[in-house]
C-alpha cells in the first residue's frame, strides 16, 4: 500500500514560546489553507481502486465509488500507470470509472502545463499483460505528448491483444500494399512484396472491413483467401425442423432435441410429418446457413442445428452468432443465452457470448425460430456462427475440414 500526495504535516510547529507559536500559527494557517486548496489530502490508490472495482450491477457500490473516484482523480500524473494497471481484471463499469480518472488527471496536468510520464506510459503500452483497452488508452495519452509515438509503436502491434492497436497496424500495412500495387505495371517483385505485406496484414486483421480490403488486393494478385477459416465460422451442421412456432410460442417450448440430443432420432414435426436430422454444409464465405433455402420457407417454425467441435484443451472462447431470428444456444447441454427478436437485421458478430470449451468433443446446439410475418423483409431464416477468442481470432476445431468447393455439399432438406 502506498500513500501519495501526503497532505501538509501538522508537526512542523516548533518552539515553546507562546508568541513564537502564535506567530508561527498566524503564518502557518494561511499556508495550510493554501496547501489544502492546491494539493490533495492523503489518498491511497489501492483503497480507492478497491472501492471502485467493487461497483456492481444496478448501481450497487456507486455511492462509495463516487467518493473514491474523487480521491483518485486528485492523483498526480506519475500515478497514471498504476491507475491504468488497475483496469486489469476490472469489470466493465469499474474500468470506466478508472478510465475517467485517468483522463481527468491527464487533462488537468496538461492544462496546467505539466508533463505526463511518457516513458512509463510507453512501457505500459508494450506490456501485453495489461488490459488491452487500458493499453490503448495509454497509447492515446502518449500520443498527446509525443506525436511521433504511433510511428514507433503501431508497426509492432499487428498481433496485439488490443483490437484497436491491431487495427491501426493493419491499416498501415494495407496502405503500404496499396502503394506497392498502385502502378498498373507493377513488376512481379512488387507483387511478391505486396503479397507478403498483405499476408501479414491478413494475419493481424480481425475487423471485417479490413479483411475484405485485404482479400480484394490479394485476389487481385492471384491469392485466394479462406474467409470461413480466417473468421472461424462453423460450416457443417446437422439440423432438424420444423417444430411449431405458431404465435412465437416455440422459443419457450423445450422440444425433444433440447432434452436429449440424439441425431438418430425421429420426431413429430409441426405439420404432423416425421422429421429427422439431416447434414448440411454451407459454402458461404461467412458461414451463413440458410434454413429457408435448405429446408423450405416454413413460417412459424423452429429448427435445431447441432455440430461437434474438437478442442485440444479446455479453453475460454467467444461464440459469435448472427441471425435475424429468435434463438437459443447451448454448449455441452448448458444454455448459454436466449433471445427473442425477429427480423431486426443480421450481422457478423451480432451477438457475442462467452463459453468454456472442454478438451475433446464439445457439442453446440442452436435453436433458430422463424415467426409468421409475411412481409418481404421478414422471410430470412438463417444464422452464422463462429468460435473465436476475445480479440476475434478464429479458434478452429482440430478436425475442421477444408473449405467446401461450390456447389454446396448438402444432403438435402427435411
Amino acid at each position: 500500500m502506498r500513500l501519495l500526495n501526503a497532505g501538509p504535516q501538522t508537526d512542523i510547529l516548533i518552539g515553546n514560546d507562546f508568541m513564537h507559536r502564535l506567530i508561527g500559527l498566524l503564518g502557518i494557517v494561511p499556508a495550510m489553507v493554501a496547501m489544502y486548496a492546491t494539493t490533495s489530502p492523503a489518498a491511497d490508490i489501492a483503497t480507492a481502486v478497491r472501492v471502485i472495482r467493487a461497483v456492481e450491477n444496478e448501481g450497487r457500490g456507486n455511492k462509495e465509488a463516487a467518493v473514491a473516484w474523487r480521491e483518485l482523480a486528485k492523483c498526480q500524473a506519475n500515478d497514471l500507470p498504476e491507475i491504468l494497471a488497475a483496469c486489469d481484471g476490472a469489470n466493465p463499469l469499474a474500468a470506466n470509472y478508472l478510465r475517467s480518472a485517468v483522463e481527468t488527471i491527464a487533462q488537468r496536468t496538461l492544462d496546467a502545463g505539466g508533463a505526463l510520464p511518457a516513458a512509463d506510459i510507453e512501457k505500459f503500452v508494450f506490456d501485453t499483460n495489461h488490459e488491452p483497452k487500458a493499453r490503448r488508452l495509454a497509447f492515446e495519452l502518449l500520443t498527446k505528448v509525443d506525436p511521433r509515438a504511433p510511428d514507433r509503436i503501431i508497426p509492432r502491434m499487428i498481433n496485439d491483444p488490443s483490437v484497436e492497436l491491431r487495427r491501426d497496424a493493419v491499416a498501415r500495412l494495407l496502405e503500404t500494399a496499396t502503394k506497392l500495387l498502385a502502378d498498373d505495371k507493377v513488376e512481379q517483385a512488387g507483387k511478391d512484396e505486396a503479397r507478403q505485406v498483405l499476408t501479414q496484414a491478413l494475419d493481424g486483421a480481425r475487423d471485417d472491413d479490413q479483411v475484405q480490403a485485404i482479400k480484394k488486393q490479394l485476389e487481385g494478385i492471384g491469392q485466394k483467401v479462406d474467409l470461413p477459416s480466417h473468421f472461424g465460422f462453423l460450416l457443417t451442421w446437422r439440423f432438424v425442423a420444423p417444430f411449431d412456432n405458431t404465435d412465437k410460442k416455440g422459443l419457450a417450448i423445450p422440444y425433444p432435441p433440447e432434452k436429449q440430443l440424439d441425431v438418430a432420432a425421429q420426431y413429430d414435426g409441426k405439420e404432423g410429418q416425421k422429421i429427422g436430422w439431416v447434414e448440411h454444409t454451407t459454402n458461404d464465405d461467412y458461414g451463413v446457413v440458410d434454413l429457408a433455402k435448405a429446408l423450405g420457407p416454413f413460417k412459424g417454425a423452429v429448427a435445431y442445428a447441432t455440430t461437434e467441435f474438437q478442442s485440444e484443451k479446455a479453453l475460454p472462447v467467444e461464440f459469435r452468432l448472427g441471425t435475424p431470428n429468435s434463438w437459443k444456444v447451448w454448449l455441452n447441454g448448458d444454455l448459454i443465452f436466449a433471445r427473442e427478436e425477429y427480423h431486426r437485421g443480421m450481422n457478423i458478430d451480432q451477438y457475442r457470448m462467452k463459453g468454456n470449451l472442454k478438451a475433446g468433443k464439445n457439442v453446440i446446439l442452436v435453436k433458430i425460430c422463424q415467426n409468421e410475418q409475411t412481409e418481404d423483409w421478414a422471410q430470412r431464416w438463417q444464422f452464422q456462427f463462429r468460435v473465436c477468442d476475445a480479440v476475434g481470432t478464429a479458434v478452429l476445431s482440430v478436425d475442421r475440414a477444408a473449405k467446401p468447393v461450390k456447389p454446396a455439399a448438402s444432403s438435402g432438406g427435411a
Partner: protein
Amino acid sequence: MKRHVVLLSFGLLTFCFLTGADWPQFRGADSSGVSADAGVPTTISDNIAWSVDLPGRGLSGPIVVGDKVFVTASSGYQQDRLHLLCFSSKTGKQLWERQFWATGRTLCHPKMCNATPTPASDGQRVFGFFSSNDVVCLDLDGNLQWMRGMTHDYPNASNSLGMSSSLLVAGETLIVPVENLSESFTAGLDPATGINRWKLDRPLLDNWTSPVVLRGKSTDDDLVVLQSGKGLTAIKPYTGFEAWRYDEPAQSIPSSATSGGVLYVPAKGLTALEPAAGGAPPRVLWQSNRLGPATPSPLVDGGRVYNINGSGVLACADAKTSQLLWQTRLQVQFGDKTSRGVFTSTPVAAGGHLYAFNEDGVALVVKTGATGEIVANHDFGETILCTPAIANDALFVRSDKHLWKIGK
C-alpha cells in the same frame, strides 16, 4: 410529507440551477421544442458564430446549460467508444471531453450510431445516454459521478437496429427508457447515485420514442408520459406509479408533444388528448389523419400544431380544432439542385419562426404566420439528423463531424 418537502426543495434547486434560457434535454426543458428566446437569428448564413469539429458520429442533439454546450458522440469500428464533450457556448472552445467504453451492444442500423439518444441535465449534472444503453453522469466540469450499463445489468435489453429514445429529467428522477422486443423497461434513477428508484416493465415492442413531461400545477404533480405501440402510460416520476393509461396504439418513432396541458400524440395520424382527473383515461379532443408525422415529432407553438410528413411537407393546424391552416413544401433550390430533403430532425421554434433541418443538411427558417413563408435557408453540406437546441438567443445544431452555433 417529508418527501414532498424534499421534492419541493429539489424542484427549487433545479429551478435555481436551470435558467430559463437553458435547453437541458431533447426538445428542451418542457419537451416542447419551443424556446421563449426572442433573439434567435432568422437568417443563418450570416449568423454562424462558430463551428467546432466533433469526433466519430452522432445523431444526438446538443443540450445547453448556462454557458456550456454538451454533445455526445461515438467512435471506433464497433462504435464502442462513447464520448461526452463540453464546449463554451460563447466561444466554442472545448472545455473537456470524457470517453467511456461501451458495456452494451453497439450494433445499429447504418443510419444510426451509438450516440443517437440526446443527453440531459438537471442543472448540476449532465447525463449521457447511448444506444448501448450505457448511462454516464458527470458534473458540469467533467468529473464522473456514476455510470450504469443497463444492458450490462439486463443482458437482453437491446435492439439490433439500435436504440434512440432520449433521457428525461423529471423532478428528482432521471427517466431512462430501454424499450425493445426482448427485455423492455423504463427505469427511474436517482440522479445523484444512478441507483434505480423503480423499474417498470414495458411492452415487448420496438420503441424509439422519448418520454415527455406533462407539467402539473406543481412539480409534485408533474407526470411522465411513456409512449409505445400499445398506447400511453402516464407515471409519477418519483415512484413510477401509474397515473393513467390510454390504450390506443401510438407510433414507435415520433414522440408526443405537450403544450398547455394537452398531449399531441402520433396516433391515428395525430391525436390531441386532455388528461382527466383521478386516474381516468384522457379525453380525446380530436384526431386528424392529415397531421400524421413521419420521423420528426410534432411541435406546438402559439396555439398551432406543426408537423412534417414523409414527403417533407410542413403542415400547420389549429391546435384546438385540428383545422388545417396551411401547408408548405420544405424545399430549396440551390442552382440546379433542389433540396426537398427527408427529415429525421424534429423542428424547433422560437420568436415566431420554426427551424427545420433536412437530411441533406439544409436548414430552413419558416415564419409561422398566416402562410408559412420560408424566409431563410442555409446548406451546411453535411447530413443532419439531430434535433437542435435553442438557448441564449442562439441555435445549436450538429452533424456527425461538426457542431455549429447560430447566434451571437
